[in-house]
């Protein structure tokens, strides 16, 4: 009844090709944005921001990045953790080398540096694909972590090998360091997520996105109809790494504040982000958000329920968490192999017809 195209007349090509063709979706989109920007910052606490919102937002950016590469362009990557580390270390080096430059610029620059590194590691994708490419990116993961551990220049020769974010201000409010108010770190991440999602959504709808998808579906056919595989694959690596780099920079500077590369950006991180896009839905921007939300918030909810509500021993809850999350992943993938995004799509299809069955 509410959710339908009928009566929503499009009178221009721009209106016809917009992201949300259904009026209800457009209003929902603006409501979500308004709530996230205008309501949540007033109610957010240190706990909510550190345990739920910041990890969710930052992983969402990483998942958007990986989704462009794997979901849209069909290039499997296991190097996400390594590329996040590039973003984090680039941000750290820029922050300490140019303390007077705005941190937000550093984060974007860190994304740019990661894009360059990502493109370099994307070169093998021109020759190899599938599992073989996954192994090549796995090498990038291990190489990058080893590099940041080995070369002391990257961590400014600190005794512990850790990098820690000094305090930086935006409009007179601290956004990195321990004195950051909860709403400030939340808003910084939210701004980056919103812009990243907008860019990613529009890139994937345009010519570039179509080239990526053509390459994904059948690279030889794509080449025959005139898609340049070199350009398509390398742009996918560059754009993807750009977002992953931004998420790594935020992960280090805004979220954790101090990072040790082997522990934070290890192979587990690559798998986690990969699981996010698989569960969320490959080739969907919404899927990146859904996957990140699922894998970030579910363990925290399970912990709150198990430990605080039922008072179970913490180790039991930690083990149960693994079991339940693992089971839910299997359940969702069996029930809906195309991820949460597909469930969402089906729900919308049903809503369009509701209350009529056909």
């Amino acid at each position: 009844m509410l959710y339908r195209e009928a009566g929503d007349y499009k009178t221009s090509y721009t209106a016809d090709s917009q992201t949300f063709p259904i009026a209800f979706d457009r209003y929902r989109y603006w409501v979500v944005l308004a709530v996230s920007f205008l309501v949540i910052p007033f109610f957010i606490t240190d706990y909510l921001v550190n345990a739920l919102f910041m990890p969710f937002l930052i992983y969402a950016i990483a998942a958007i990045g990986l989704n462009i590469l794997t979901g849209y362009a069909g290039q499997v990557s296991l190097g996400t953790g390594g590329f996040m580390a590039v973003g984090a270390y680039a941000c750290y080096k820029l922050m300490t080398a140019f303390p007077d430059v705005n941190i937000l610029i550093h984060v974007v620059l860190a994304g740019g540096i990661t894009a360059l590194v990502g493109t370099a590691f994307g070169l093998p994708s021109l020759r190899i694909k599938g599992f073989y490419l996954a192994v090549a990116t796995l090498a990038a993961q291990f190489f990058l972590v080893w590099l940041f551990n080995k070369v002391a220049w990257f961590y400014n020769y600190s005794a512990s090998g850790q990098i820690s974010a000094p305090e930086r201000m935006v409009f007179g409010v601290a956004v990195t360091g321990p004195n950051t108010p909860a709403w400030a770190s939340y808003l910084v991440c939210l701004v980056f997520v919103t812009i990243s999602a907008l860019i990613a959504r529009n890139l994937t709808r345009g010519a570039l996105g179509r080239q990526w998808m053509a390459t994904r579906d059948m690279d030889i056919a794509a080449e025959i109809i005139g898609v340049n595989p070199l350009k398509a694959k390398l742009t996918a690596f560059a754009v993807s790494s750009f977002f992953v780099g931004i998420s790594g920079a935020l992960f280090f500077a805004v979220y954790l504040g101090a990072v040790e590369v082997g522990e934070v950006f290890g192979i587990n991180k690559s798998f986690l982000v990969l699981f996010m896009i698989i569960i969320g839905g490959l080739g969907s921007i919404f899927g990146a958000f859904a996957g990140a939300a699922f894998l970030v918030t579910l363990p925290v909810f399970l912990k709150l329920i198990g430990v605080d509500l039922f008072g179970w021993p913490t180790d039991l809850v930690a083990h149960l968490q693994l079991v339940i999350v693992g089971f839910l992943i299997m359940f969702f993938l069996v029930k809906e192999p195309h991820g949460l995004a597909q469930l969402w799509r089906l729900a919308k299809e049903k809503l369009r017809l509701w209350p009529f069955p056909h």
Partner: protein
Amino acid sequence: MTLKTLTTLALSGVLVAGTAAADLVIPDLSYRTGPYAAGGTPFSDGYQDYFNLLNARDGGIGGETVRIVECETGYNTEKGVECYEATKSEGALIYQPLSTGITYQLIPKTTADEIPIHTMGYGRTSAANGEVFPWVFNYPANYWDAASVMVNYLLEENGGSLDGKTIALVYHNSAYGKEPIRTLEALSAEHGFEFTQIAVDHPGQEQKSQWLQIRRERPDFVLMWGWGVMNQVAVQEASNINFPMENFIGNWWAGAEHDVTPAGAGANGYKSLNMNRIDADLPVFADITSMVHDAGNAAGDGSNIGSVLYTRGMYAAMLAAEAIAKAQEIHGVADVTPAMVRDGMEALEITNARMEELGMAQIGPEFSVSCENHGGSGLGIVQQWDASAGNWVALTDYIAPQDAVIDGLIAEDSGAFAAENNITPGCL
């Protein structure tokens, strides 16, 4: 929808629990899962059991009951941050995360939130300078003390000279493992031994190439900064290449029963440091058994009592309880705040008489804390594993570190931190 309802329930549960608190809240950021659980479990058991003993025997500390809030970190920094934020709002008095990585996260956060953090024999060594790190304490000893104690022990064993010897450091490739490198480099320059570094990546299950290198280079002594599963693997590998075990010394986090038992007889003669004595006959253990375990309040399964890390966890709890008692004495109130506990920690004095009174005679060295020195005395003992008897034998009395070298390094590193973060050193 169900998930949402449940979450709302859970969240409101947290809020209710938070407001009902009028007792002493001690968070226990433990890890009973993951590759480091073997060490985290007994430590946490000892830590909790001691506070439960105080509740059962003395009615808490100064008449206030202690409420322990346990939170599982899995030795993972992200979960550590979540645990910190979750427990901080409940009025946490003192943090002991038992993880150098999480400590580095928490140092700036606890300083901003004004909650003391006690990193006993781990964490950031230069935090011993209390003028730069007013909220961080690492008494009774730190990593650089440990490195120096090891070298002093080897000096004594080798007739006062290590000239021309080679010492290899097998370390966990993290902030934890990298801590002693600077000290060992300074000591190698001073005593003329050759120093090589061999890194082991997290979690340390794969060490074949490292021990192959040791087999090839044949260093005279191997020191180890290991934790969790890495220790067991290292001891096993050392025994596989027939490395003389008496020349293999672990630090105090690489010297518990579970580190050596998997290697069986091969581990015989392996040495490690310890910052506290092991004595399963201490009267306090009898109290814990009768008043906590028999009452069904044991943390964990109660099987770890008296072991190396259980004893250390209990020792950590005792130091925290003494600091809280001291804070109550200084400020004249029983329901202390984190800031008061910090004052208590800074005025803490542990004497042999007091330790005996607490039923744990000689468990640690005597030391006192001051505003300038948050690091304690830095003493350590060397113990050796007797595989046939299945226990650790203390070889030495407390050995003192070379304070002249370490104090210089601490001043240098904390000075750099103060400059980087615009801190003017001074007492609170």
